[in-house]
């Protein structure tokens, strides 16, 4: 009855295409560091964890940093509400993720890779450990990988139920045995990361894209998607639709086409990017997913016309109040104030002047918070109040059917 690893027949242009364990590593060792970085640069791959930083630049910076020891970290903390694509990659395509880590380690000059796996995903730990053991037997991990003088191994560490630990500097703090509190930047992890060593933190999906890029070339990869958003993206689709699940689609896909694929009917709102993302009304379903328009880590939550937007917003704000690490005031106090505001709206006990003040507070939080959590937590507050004002501020709101 428990969720165990099961292979699903999936189809996609890149990540969900054919791949055999080790192929990418072999190719990488033939290519050498310079050529790997060149192919990555040509591919225009950007980080899939949300921030969209070019992966070739991150690896180049870490490779250039001088130190006795370096690390590559796979960010498998996947805590953004509505996101589960990394779960699918780790359970169904571990060959892509781990080969990508080995290639990354080789490129930046690391001997050790760490996977930060969210505590909620402990159910897959035993299978992943077995998988790593098989890689060692195949000489894809350990000393003298594939007969070369490259040594590299991977260790999996578990998180313990804190969303903020997905933020890369909080993640590093957590790996070091501290509270998962974000650090000031600079210094950046590429210079001062895990145990003060140069560290490249990469999302699961980013790493999984690398083996395909090396095998088929950066040019081939960038021929998918759009100019500024190359390649494909995994979208975690859930909520009111007939076919929830993970979809691999080219960047540049329109919201309305994604809704059609997922079998969504009667859709009122689409929340893109999770609780920290934005909420779009029907009039904006023509918009496209990609860095040109709506950049996202791939969480797509669909809400139909029966749902109450105020309750949805309240759920998001409760999430942030709980997950704020409390280190800085704008986020610690701000999220509580925003939640109280939503509760006032729920009880029809507010003035527009006060709600507008809260929106301004949200805008200050976006600027003044220390890390991405507090900087993005006001997004849903602002976008739901703006895009659904007729419903939100209608005193005859029916409370919907959110059960």
């Amino acid at each position, binding site marked *: *009855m*428990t*969720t165990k690893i099961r292979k699903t027949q999936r189809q996609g242009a890149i990540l969900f295409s054919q791949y055999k364990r080790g192929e990418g590593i072999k190719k990488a060792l033939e290519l050498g560091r310079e050529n790997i970085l060149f192919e990555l640069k040509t591919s225009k791959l950007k980080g899939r964890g949300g921030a969209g930083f070019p992966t070739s630049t991150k690896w180049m910076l870490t490779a250039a940093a001088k130190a006795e020891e370096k690390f590559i970290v796979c960010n498998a903390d*996947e*805590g*953004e*509400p*509505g*996101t*589960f694509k*990394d*779960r699918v990659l780790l359970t169904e395509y571990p060959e892509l993720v781990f080969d990508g880590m080995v290639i990354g380690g080789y490129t930046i000059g690391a001997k050790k890779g760490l996977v930060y796996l*969210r*505590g*909620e*995903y*402990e*159910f897959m*730990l035993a299978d992943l450990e077995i998988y790593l053991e098989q890689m060692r037997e195949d000489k894809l991990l350990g000393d003298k990988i594939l007969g070369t003088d490259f040594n590299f191994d991977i260790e999996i*560490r*578990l*998180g*313990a*139920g*804190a*969303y903020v630990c997905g933020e890369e500097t909080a993640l590093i703090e*957590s*790996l*070091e*045995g*501290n*509270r*998962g509190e974000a650090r000031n930047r600079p210094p950046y992890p590429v210079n001062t990361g895990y*145990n003060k060593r140069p560290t490249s933190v990469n999302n699961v999906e980013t790493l999984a894209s690398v083996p395909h890029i090396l095998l088929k070339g950066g040019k081939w990869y960038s021929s998918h998607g759009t100019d500024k958003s190359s390649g494909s993206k995994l979208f*975690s*689709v*859930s*909520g*009111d639709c007939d076919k*929830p*699940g*993970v979809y691999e689609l080219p960047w540049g896909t329109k919201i309305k086409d994604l809704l059609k694929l997922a079998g969504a009917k009667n859709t009122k709102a689409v929340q893109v990017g999770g*609780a920290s993302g934005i909420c779009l009304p029907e009039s904006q379903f023509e918009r496209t997913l990609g860095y040109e328009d709506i950049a996202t880590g791939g969480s797509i*939550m669909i*809400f139909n016309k029966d*749902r109450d937007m105020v309750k*949805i917003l309240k*759920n*998001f704000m409760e*999430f942030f109040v*709980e*997950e704020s*690490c409390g280190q800085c005031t704008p986020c610690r106090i701000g999220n509580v104030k925003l939640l109280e505001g939503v509760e006032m709206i729920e009880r029809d006990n507010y003035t527009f002047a006060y709600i507008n003040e809260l929106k301004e507070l949200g805008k200050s939080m976006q600027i003044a918070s220390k890390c991405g959590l507090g900087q993005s937590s006001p997004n849903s507050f602002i976008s739901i109040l703006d895009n659904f004002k007729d419903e939100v501020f209608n005193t005859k709101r029916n409370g919907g059917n*959110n*059960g």
Partner: protein
Amino acid sequence: MLVTEKNSLAQEIEELCKSYGSDRSALLPILQAIQKNHKYISDFAQQEIARMLDIHPVEVYSVVSFYTFLHSEPKGRNIVRLCRTIVCDISGKDLVENAITRELGIKFGETTKDKRITLEYTNCLGMCDQGPAMMINDNIYTQLTPEKAVKILNELK
């Protein structure tokens, strides 16, 4: 705590330090192991870990208190965490929640008298395509109905 219990816990912590090392970065894995074996990390365990890693006990406490999955108070033998994030919320989480609390006669945040089950909420488990979802100890259960959830709970030892 009995002296024998203390001794065996101290020994367990020593063993853990041997396998995970005595660096600060071993703290979380050690705490997670104690949490798993005892369902909570007692004051004594925290002090002993601090001693072994050569850090102040307050440091250990501050880490334990930060992470949702680490507890400094005793919990039930099974920790049940129901996802309360939005997708599960609109897929019937309330019905499951009502059935569970009715069956066990406790509220969320509480532990049954026989210490069999502690009920807690959790945020998105990454199973939104198969909600409602809950986590029991290390396992995740999906596509819950009230009947299915109650049956799963009744099978817990």
